[in-house]
């Protein structure tokens, strides 16, 4: 009687089976958003200007070194802002040589402008500016990614955020120790080992007494703490150290938590082979002098070099066991290229998320049951038809979500409720139309056929309009709005399949079993 009825039924059963297979077991297959399983979301700005300053300063320092090696005298080479540095007092007879050298050395990254009296301004090329900023953000993302992996977070997301190009979003679902996670992500962890020239001294004036009150050009002052004996409170102190680091965090092969000779928590590190030979040379010639171990611009300790050290070292200080564990982790992950400014933080405890799931699921089920009771009461057997197709719709929707790895959020649950609403609406539209056709004197078969045919256009119109809205919501929305848009979008698509195709098949199935039926239970 009806063509291909068997194949239609098989198709529907297959879709249902596929959906269930995708979703089962739900706790493994469905990804939960922050609001449902707890965790933390951070948005941070990478202070990319620091990366530019670093580039400018290093370039200036390297040029100065090359110039003095080549015997080109200048009165000064100094950075003037983020992206420019100024060379002054180039001797007139060395001008050609200076230009040649500058061209070779920095020509690729800086534009040169001539001023009066042998002064030159070097300005970073715009494309280099853009590149360095982009690299800083990319490197920050990589570093944070390594750190959250060290933390053992399952399915973290570390990604660029926003349109400015310098923001990063970090999602750590399921993390419970939120302060620690924040600390681990935000720490710059720039490790530098520098030779101490003077110090420690309780204030800067004392420190500079030996050098005539001024900081020599190749040195700098770094603050730190000095504890004379174990158990004594540490006092602030200052060190005069060489500007050029003997070893930095980039030279590390690995780092791990350990204890020092006093059985205090410490971090031991191993250098890579290149750094090891350099370090061996420096320490071999500096026995008896102090080496400052500087972390994020603060001297942690300044041990006396007692012998040649090649590839191993230890960072000691006043650390707790937890601190050395975390410090060794961030050292292994590498330093951030620039500091981060937090801009947004949203953290949710695990119990709140569970409460929300329970409430949302209960409410959804309650809603579904109420709707089902009404449909069966009002439309009799056809009402069962509606309940079956709406349930199928929800199953297909869950299958879609699991297949796409879409994240379930609180508004996503609300999207499920709305999907139920859309399913009900489509069924009601069709049933009312069938009733109308029956009232106009059509037989059950003709009424069902006319009902579905006529209403199909309306259903398409309503669904396309809503799909357009969902697509824009997804495109321009953020977090919760997106979760809602995703659910709505796939709910609408699966609803067309279930409310039109599956529902019609069910009607035809029941009509084909009673070929002579004069009445339709609707």
């Amino acid at each position: 009687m009806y063509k291909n009825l068997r194949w239609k039924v098989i198709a529907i059963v297959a879709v249902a089976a596929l959906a269930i297979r995708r979703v089962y077991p739900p706790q493994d297959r469905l990804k939960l958003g922050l609001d449902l399983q707890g965790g933390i979301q951070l948005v941070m700005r990478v202070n990319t200007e620091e990366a530019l300053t670093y580039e400018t300063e290093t370039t200036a320092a390297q040029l100065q070194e090359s110039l003095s090696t080549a015997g080109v005298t200048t009165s000064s080479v100094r950075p003037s802002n983020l992206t420019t540095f100024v060379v002054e007092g180039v001797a007139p007879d060395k001008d050609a040589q200076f230009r040649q050298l500058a061209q070779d050395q920095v020509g690729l990254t800086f534009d040169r402008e001539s001023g009066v009296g042998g002064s030159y301004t070097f300005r970073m090329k715009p494309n280099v500016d853009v590149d360095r900023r982009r690299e800083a953000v990319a490197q920050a993302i990589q570093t944070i990614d390594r750190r959250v992996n060290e933390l053992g977070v399952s399915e973290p997301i570390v990604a660029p955020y926003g349109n400015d190009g310098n923001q990063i979003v970090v999602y750590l679902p399921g993390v419970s120790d939120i302060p620690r996670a924040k600390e681990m992500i935000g720490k710059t962890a720039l490790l530098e080992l520098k030779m101490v020239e003077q110090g420690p001294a309780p204030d800067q004036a004392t420190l500079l007494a030996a050098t005539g009150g001024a900081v020599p050009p190749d040195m700098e002052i770094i603050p730190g703490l000095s504890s004379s004996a174990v158990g004594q409170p540490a006092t602030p102190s200052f060190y005069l150290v060489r500007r050029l680091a003997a070893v930095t965090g980039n030279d590390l092969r690995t780092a791990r938590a350990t204890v020092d000779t006093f059985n205090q928590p410490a971090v031991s590190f191993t250098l890579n082979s290149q750094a090891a030979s350099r370090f061996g040379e420096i320490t071999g010639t500096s026995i008896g002098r102090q080496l400052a171990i500087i972390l994020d611009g603060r001297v942690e300790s300044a041990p006396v070099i007692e012998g040649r050290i090649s590839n191993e070292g230890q960072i000691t200080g006043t650390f707790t066991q937890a601190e050395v564990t975390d410090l060794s982790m961030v050292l292994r992950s590498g330093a951030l290229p620039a500091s981060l400014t937090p801009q947004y933080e949203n953290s949710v405890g695990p119990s709140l998320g569970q409460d929300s799931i329970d409430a949302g699921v209960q409410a959804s089920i309650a809603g579904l049951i109420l709707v089902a009771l009404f449909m069966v009461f009002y439309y009799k057997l056809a009402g069962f038809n509606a309940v079956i197709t709406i349930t199928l719709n929800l199953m297909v929707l869950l299958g879609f979500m699991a297949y796409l790895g879409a994240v379930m959020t609180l508004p996503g649950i609300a999207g499920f409720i709305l999907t139920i609403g859309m399913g009900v609406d489509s069924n009601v539209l069709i049933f009312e139309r069938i009733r109308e056709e029956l009232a106009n004197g059509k037989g059950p078969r003709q009424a069902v056929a006319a009902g579905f045919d006529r209403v199909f256009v309306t259903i398409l119109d309503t669904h396309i309009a809503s799909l357009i809205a969902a697509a824009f919501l997804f495109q321009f929305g953020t977090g919760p709005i997106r979760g809602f848009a995703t659910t709505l979008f796939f709910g609408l698509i699966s609803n067309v399949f279930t409310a039109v195709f599956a529902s019609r098949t069910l009607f035809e199935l029941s009509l084909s079993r009673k070929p002579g039926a004069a009445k339709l239970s609707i």
Partner: protein
Amino acid sequence: MQILSKTNFNFIKWRWHAIALSAVIIIAGVGTIVMQPGGLKLGIEFSGGTELLLRFEQPVSEDAVRGALASIQGEKSVQRYGAAADNMVLVRLPQLLQVETGQTLDDGAESVLQLLRQANIGAFTPDRTDIVGPAIGADLRSKGIWATITALAGIMIYIALRFRFTFAVGAIVATLHDVVICLIFLNWFGYELSLNIIAALLAMTGYSVNDTIVVFDRVRENTRTMRKDNLEPLVNTSVNQTLSRTVITAGTTFLAVAGLYLYGGEALEGFAFTLLVGIISGTYSTVFIAAAIALVLTKPTAPTQSGAARARAKGKS
């Protein structure tokens, strides 16, 4: 069983009353929003600031919490959250204590936690922390507005393409009407405009447009069988023919959302409230506003069909 079968209410007769009623509500509501200090209340993600949801182990009074936080400068709010048995308190600092530099974003949150621990009013855990810096607040605001505008515009363009122009205007006015009514009721009932509420508003928009499309589709269908030179009875018949569907869909969706409102927990309450208002307003605007506006705008002597309807009519016959 059947309710509302073969109705023949004269909805169109009441169109001016309906428009007047809506105008009164909108003027009163918008007036309230404009007059109240600060205008429409915005959620933490749009306004920026710090919000902490604290779960106490023992019952605690809001005044005790407020007292403990007395030393924090500036405006702040402390209120009970959820059921009384949950012992949850929501603390909100509308502005960040520090400028958004360095690691100081969470200074406000940290000082709240510290002061409460010192005050010794019982053990608690922070269940949720939201700290929104000014840059992100502005970003979320503009994204929320853009999402709303583009989604609405997308729907409108689709309706304009599918139906005759005056009907599209009717649908647009009806939908904007529903959005404004929802905002007004949210404001009257003390809900803040948050990201979740925006999602609900847009869901409601989809629902309202849905309703309108059903009626307009029927009008389009009826233009093939009824006299086209007098739109008034044509539209009125279409509204009546789809009335039982409108009422049943609204009723069942209302039931489902009412479940969400009552049992969905604090987090979904505002969302569900928006949908409840939207369903009522959407149904009302479909029956009274959308068709009425379309009628008012359509010149009685210009019964041209839309291109789409004509094409389809040709294909069918």
